[in-house]
């Protein structure tokens, strides 16, 4: 279902402006659908944890850039591109764990906003990772309340529960909603 994807062009890495000991860098990429240019960012955290996020380049300075729906109906190849990023980072870092948040949709015209629990995006991403990556490579962790999902790499040196605790302690320093 998520076999198709868009080619990524690297835009370079930037060091984290805050707490660089916890978030080491942010890797930026660009991909283009027939109508829209997207920016895809991978935030690299301590404990080999990577957060994938993307937004329409046109809205790069918009406070709700992750929430705006484009209505281009290209979700499958865009999510396929994110799946490729998971593979790409797994090749670079065999201990990589991944996280994402299914942002609640916001319509800038009507001002309507989706609730933050179990969002439409989160359900699609959840479906994608369940079907693309089974429980063999990753232990799956979810939070329905704020629509977030973590794929915990199975590793010999740390149990999944301990890894999750460590990751959440780091991430809670950056994402207020994660801790509220």
């Amino acid at each position, binding site marked *: 279902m998520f076999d198709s994807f868009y080619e990524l062009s690297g835009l370079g890495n930037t060091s984290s402006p805050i707490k660089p000991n916890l978030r080491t860098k942010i890797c930026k990429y660009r991909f283009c659908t027939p109508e829209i240019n997207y920016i895809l960012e991978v935030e690299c955290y301590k404990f080999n944890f990577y957060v994938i996020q993307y937004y329409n380049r046109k809205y790069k300075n918009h406070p709700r850039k992750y929430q705006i729906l484009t209505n281009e109906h290209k979700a499958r190849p865009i999510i396929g591109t994110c799946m490729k990023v998971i593979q790409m980072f*797994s090749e670079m870092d065999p201990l990589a764990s991944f996280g994402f948040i299914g942002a609640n949709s916001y319509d800038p015209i009507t001002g309507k906003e989706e609730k933050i629990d179990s969002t439409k995006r989160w359900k699609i991403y959840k479906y994608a990772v369940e*079907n693309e990556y089974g*429980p063999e490579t990753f232990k799956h*962790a979810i939070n329905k309340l704020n629509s977030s999902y973590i794929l915990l790499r199975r590793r010999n040196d740390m149990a999944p529960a301990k890894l999750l605790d460590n990751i959440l302690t780091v991430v809670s320093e950056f994402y207020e909603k*994660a*801790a509220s």
Partner: protein
Amino acid sequence: MSCKTAPKNKASKMNNAFSDMKHSSVIRLKNNSISEVRASIGFTLRSDDSVRKSQVKGYKYILP
């Protein structure tokens, strides 16, 4: 009727308390044990069976 103002040190304590309230979630994280943190944040580890049951055709990739 005169308006009584709080002494300086009391005011600063109040400010600190207010600041603590603003960051209560972070403070709670620092005070609690790490497994309580996970519970308070609302994350749950899924059982492998629940992931398998949600799959339509089985997973595709086993990564290194």
